[in-house]
């Protein structure tokens, strides 16, 4: 056992931190925050700077320009970025889609996408969720019908982050309605400037925006299919595995929030209240456990395991902890905690209310709490139906 980062990992953390603390970058970040939404925020300027450092392709295969980062190094990256609230949703999506294209895309698609994606010239979104397919993603009904060298796409996707800015969407669509539901899905990298694509906003709590995409007879060339026809479910599962390290961001964001909260409560003398102290100690402990569950997952990934149960544990625990923390913090701060960034009397530059408003997303996005519990029960504990 070893609970410390090694020298290279510490060095990387310093490198990442230096970027996060750079004055100019903090200025951009503050401007983004003034616009309201941290989570879906995107700044081309920051994004380009990150791309220049090779951060979009950190864990891509080396032959496609990747830097071959280990899972441990990826976790250090995600932790550091999240702790300093760098907007990296665009980076996560570009990294994910790049990886998927590198592993499963056609040669034509690799040539079109990879150099520009790693240079930070492209934005991507995930076109998975539908009005009637949420946790039961395999029930999706968006159709892609073969027509010569093309597929014709019809259907609706919802709740997509960055959908209004993205150049391409990683689309899950049904190519074989006759097959069992997991065996009739294919993945496409759909250019979003295609004719027949309509993108409209859906607004979220915390002043954010996600999107609805309606596809009406959208024609996409078969070169944009990722993996074999009808093998989309498999690719999708693989893609999920490639980005497990980003789970660490949830706990790191919580850590940053708690550090700020503790400082504030100390300054205002509230840490003499034993009830407040109990709550803080609970948060502190729960965050430490989240952190350890993330690193447990990370070190197993580093050994080449496929830790499905441990990944579900990390996601379940971090997101449920954050969900409680968002509310608990407001109980400590009282009415002042409800004040938005910019309001007279606002605390922690509005982070307290933001954390509270984002909580419902954290326990749903990237696999809900109940989906995680199901994975742990079935895969980890062997509790499947029988008899």
């Amino acid at each position, binding site marked *: 056992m070893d609970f410390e*980062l090694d020298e290279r990992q510490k060095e990387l953390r310093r490198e990442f931190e230096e970027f996060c603390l750079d004055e100019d970058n903090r200025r951009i970040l503050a401007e983004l925050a003034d616009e309201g939404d941290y989570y879906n925020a995107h700044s081309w300027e920051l994004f380009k700077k990150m791309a220049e450092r090779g951060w979009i392709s950190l864990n891509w295969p080396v032959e496609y320009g990747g830097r071959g980062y280990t899972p441990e190094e990826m976790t250090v990256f995600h932790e550091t970025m999240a702790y300093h609230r760098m907007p990296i949703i665009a980076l996560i999506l570009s990294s994910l889609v790049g990886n998927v294209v590198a592993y499963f895309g056609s040669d034509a698609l690799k040539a079109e996408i990879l150099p520009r994606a790693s240079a930070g010239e492209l934005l991507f979104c995930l076109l998975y969720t539908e009005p009637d397919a949420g946790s039961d993603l395999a029930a999706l009904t968006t159709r892609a019908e073969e027509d010569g060298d093309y597929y014709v796409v019809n259907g609706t996707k919802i709740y997509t982050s960055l959908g209004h800015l993205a150049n391409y969407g990683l689309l899950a669509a049904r190519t074989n309605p006759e097959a069992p539901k997991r065996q009739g899905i294919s993945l496409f990298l759909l250019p979003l400037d295609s004719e027949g694509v309509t993108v409209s906003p859906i607004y979220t709590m915390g002043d954010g925006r996600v999107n609805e995409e309606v596809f009406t007879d959208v024609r996409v060339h078969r070169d944009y299919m990722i993996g074999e026809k009808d093998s989309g479910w498999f690719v999708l599962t693989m893609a999920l595995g490639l980005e497990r390290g980003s789970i660490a961001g949830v706990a790191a964001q919580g850590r940053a929030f708690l550090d*700020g909260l503790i400082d504030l409560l100390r300054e205002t003398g509230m*840490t003499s209240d034993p009830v407040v102290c109990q709550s803080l100690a609970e948060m502190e402990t729960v965050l430490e456990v989240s952190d350890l569950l993330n690193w447990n997952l990370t070190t197993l990934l580093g050994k080449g395991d496929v830790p499905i149960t441990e990944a579900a544990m990390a996601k379940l625990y971090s997101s449920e902890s954050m969900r409680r923390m968002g509310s608990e913090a407001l109980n400590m701060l009282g009415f002042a905690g409800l004040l938005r960034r910019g309001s007279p009397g606002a605390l922690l530059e509005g982070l307290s209310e933001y954390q509270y408003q984002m909580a419902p997303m954290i326990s749903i996005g990237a696999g809900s709490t109940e989906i995680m519990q199901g994975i742990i029960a079935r895969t980890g504990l062997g509790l499947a139906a029988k008899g």
Partner: protein
Amino acid sequence: MDLSFNEEQSLLRDTFREFMGKECPREVVERAESGDLSVTSELWRKMASLGWLGLGLSGDEESTDEMVSICILCEEMGRVLLPVPYVPSVVLGGRAVFEGLAEPVRSRILQSLEAGECIIAPALMERNRFDGLRCRTCSASRTEGGYTIDGLKRFVEWADTADYLLVSALTAEGPSAFLVHAKSPGLVLNPLDAIGGERLFDVNLSEVSVDAECRLGGPNGGKGPLNSAIDRAKVALSAQMVGGASAVLEKAVAYARERVQFGKTIGSFQGIAFPLADCATEVTGARLLTYKAAWLTDRGSASAPRFAAMAKAYASDLYRKATDLSAHVHGGLGFMMECDIQLYYRKSKAAELAYGDGKYNRSLLFGPNGGSFASPGEDRANDLAKSGAKV
């Protein structure tokens, strides 16, 4: 960073587990509970002959992972409820002697501890709950050759079996502790009867004399070595509770996979499966937190006491939740004496309370003066550096 056991640690775990499986079936636990001390002596003798009672007391600079090894042992002990005074006598008592007493007494006691010939029972409490080093009635006054101790210590486990009691008492220099012969004149034991079959006693001390060299930390000290020993006991006991929680969770899962109601195994119902999934997650978390506390202790980290308190708080709450859940998943059977769970359910409460429950240990993390320890964020072995910059 590597959060799994290395090869040596896995081997150690296997060795301990094999021993526990062979030496401690349920019947052994029950015999011990019914008062049969020969069971404990036999187990103690075997553990001594295997060299396990000297862990953490060698002073060998090379053994960097001693506390981790102790936790591996304690986790396996906790799985089977091994009826021996390992944590109080060796981890707490032994360490207090190791850090707090001078030669030649120190070596003499440590050698007999390691040989399994001596048991130390810490006598730290004076009220109903653990309260650290706080002494309300028990005091030690200086005499010519040493000290005289007066007062009442409560809920002293294994007091009748012990050769020495480690008694905390207020001195002119503040709280300290003394290694007192169990057969000293003026020392009277009153047996209590608790639900987990713990061998608990109230100990009355009336003009009990101890030699000067039996004071921890020399003529003016005691607090340091005692605190350090208590922190180690918290970590070791956390490991024991993690072991117990794993055992009850495994038993509940096994039952949920077999028991059929409404035409299905009950484990296929989300109402059963999801709480078990949550529990499995928390058991994993508690285990990692405990081993991190142990790892930091082995490296003499300044944040080790914080982590000891955190681990004890988390593992205490978890053990209670896990035994409660396991009993519940077992349905009516979980309430019956024939079911293994009752043993864990009854015994877990004393473990939860020992060295302070969750609330007590959490209260050490934050308080009016910033809590009992350094502020969080300082000396965190692998945490993110705290930066002044905030959005």
